[in-house]
């Protein structure tokens, strides 16, 4: 309702401003009020140089679903980031223009303001920068930014939309990035069963409850504390990586030293960052299979098996994985969590409480065309 009032006000202001002589007079776009649950905390930033506005977010939504961003007008951001799959594509690695396979799995887009350093290896410092790369990537949309600007400029709708959002009918790549970033920052998922539990509007089953405890607990066999060790990296309510420099990038034991990809090391240049990838949010994880940066696991059961008994040693394997077991660690033996089947099932039951059905059907986020 507030939004409606704001929109009416905007239209009102716009009408007033058009009453003057200059029809190109700039009307400030209307601030967009991001609805954020208190328990997500304050460790997020909305960049001052690109504040959220109703017009900017709406333009970003159109661009997100705009196939003209691709060379042959067949692919949009939403081709690989589909709302019904929590903005993933259900594929191990995404398929770009001309049916080409990419090398990484499409990441879910969720609760982005609490995240920084985008892409699996963290190479984009901002969403504004991130949003432009797939347009130019020859495997994805394969279209120069100049060509993209020119195609959008020659449409009926976009010059006016850019004017409303940024005060200029002349489209720029910078404003394309800004609009896409604005839309993505509004993709807040906070209406899962887990959220309802946090605010006291729902109860977890006994199994989900056990799963939650295990999820957030680092095991300590000397104190008989059992844990699944998930929350060490997928921290707290957000279940995503720590938003502090590159702290939220980890090597989770998928490959040995010779098989490790560069990962974060390609960005920082530190050998100690080899094989580290962005810790993703687990919000809506039941909808985002297959899993890991290369989509190697098809099911949550396989993921749990990996962390429980499939960890592969390497130089940069995370200490929190190395040091986690529900039984006393025997030097030189394989790394195992020693969870029971029942405990693994409980963790999966908890993971399923992170599914937010409003998020995947909310019309604010859906195809506007």
């Amino acid at each position, binding site marked *: 309702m507030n939004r409606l009032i704001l929109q009416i006000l905007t239209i009102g202001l716009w009408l007033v401003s058009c009453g003057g002589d200059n029809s190109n007079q700039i009307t400030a776009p209307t601030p967009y009020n991001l609805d954020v649950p208190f328990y997500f*905390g304050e460790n997020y930033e909305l960049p001052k140089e690109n504040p959220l506005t109703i017009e900017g977010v709406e333009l970003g939504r159109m661009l997100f679903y705009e196939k003209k961003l691709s060379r042959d007008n067949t692919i949009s951001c939403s081709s690989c980031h589909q709302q019904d799959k929590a903005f993933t594509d259900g594929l191990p690695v995404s398929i770009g223009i001309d049916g080409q396979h990419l090398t990484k799995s499409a990441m879910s887009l969720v609760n982005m303001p609490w995240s920084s350093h985008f892409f699996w290896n963290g190479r984009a410092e901002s969403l504004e920068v991130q949003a432009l790369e797939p347009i130019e990537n020859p495997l994805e949309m394969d279209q120069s930014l100049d060509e993209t600007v020119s195609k959008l400029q020659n449409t009926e709708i976009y010059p006016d939309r850019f004017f409303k959002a940024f005060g200029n009918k002349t489209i720029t790549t910078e404003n394309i990035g800004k609009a896409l970033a604005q839309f993505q920052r509004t993709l807040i998922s906070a209406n899962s069963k887990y959220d309802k539990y946090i605010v006291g509007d729902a109860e977890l089953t006994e199994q989900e409850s056990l799963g939650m405890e295990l999820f957030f607990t680092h095991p*300590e066999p000397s*104190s008989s504390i059992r844990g699944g060790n998930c929350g060490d990296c997928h921290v707290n309510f957000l279940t995503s990586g*720590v938003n502090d420099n590159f702290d939220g990038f980890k090597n989770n034991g998928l490959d040995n030293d010779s098989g490790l990809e560069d990962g974060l090391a390609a960005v920082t240049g*530190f050998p100690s960052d080899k094989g580290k990838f962005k810790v993703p949010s687990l919000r809506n994880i039941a909808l985002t299979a297959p899993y890991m940066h290369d989509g190697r696991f098809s099911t949550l059961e396989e993921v749990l098996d990996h962390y429980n008994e499939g960890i592969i040693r390497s130089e940069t394997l995370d*200490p929190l994985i190395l040091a*986690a077991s529900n039984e006393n660690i025997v030097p030189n033996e394989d790394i195992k969590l020693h969870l029971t089947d029942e405990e693994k099932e409980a963790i999966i039951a908890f993971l399923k409480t992170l599914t937010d059905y409003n998020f995947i059907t909310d019309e604010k986020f859906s195809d506007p065309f």
Partner: protein
Amino acid sequence: MKNFQTLFSVAFLMTILLIASGCGSENDVDFNDSLTLEFKAIANGQPLAFNTANYTTASGNVISIDRMKFYLSNLQLINSETGEAFVEQDGYHLVSLNDEQEEYSFTIENLRSDFKFDKIKFAIGVDADKNASIDNVGDLDPTNDMAWNWNTGYKFFLMEGLFYPGVDQENQGLVLHIGLDRNFKTLEFLADNHIDIAGSNTLHFTLDGLAPFNSPNVIDLTSKSSYMVDEDSNKIAENYATGLIRLSSTER
């Protein structure tokens, strides 16, 4: 972080009001001065090389350190002659050091310029009141990786790295996640001379990365390289209360 600064400003304003109301005659006092506390990690007296260097602890264990973090709270600046004290309200600072951030500092603004102090007190940890709350005060935030679980309080001190048991032995994870009310430790530092708050001052502290393992309790990692909430974690806390932080110099 910007939000925290706002919070601090409010906290200081309140402190200032308290001090000011007690000193009605001092009309000329201004509150424009600031104090910076800066922290650098060291090992064996040299800057600590995160991730890369191997260090030997008192018990002969070889380790490397990826990151160190701790909560600094309940900061007081005390004039031990007059008994006058500045008490920072709701100040919870997460001091975080790693290979991308080799120094950490924070600044207290709006201090009363005629204040002189010679003693600095602060705690490692989060006091019991706030530890049992999910309020976001200062750097306290249940969504950072210092919260154990949103209903079980904060880690006060965190160190992560690797322990190298020896030739032909696989590396082990080195994990210190220490918290719980019993491990809240208050530290005191004496400056050589009274520090005059007028002008801009910086207090330089060192954080000794090997201190948690060395004294008064010698920790042997060969029996266990992960410390969290059991009895042994108290020994780590006793160590960080003793040798972790030194006031190395003051500067203005």
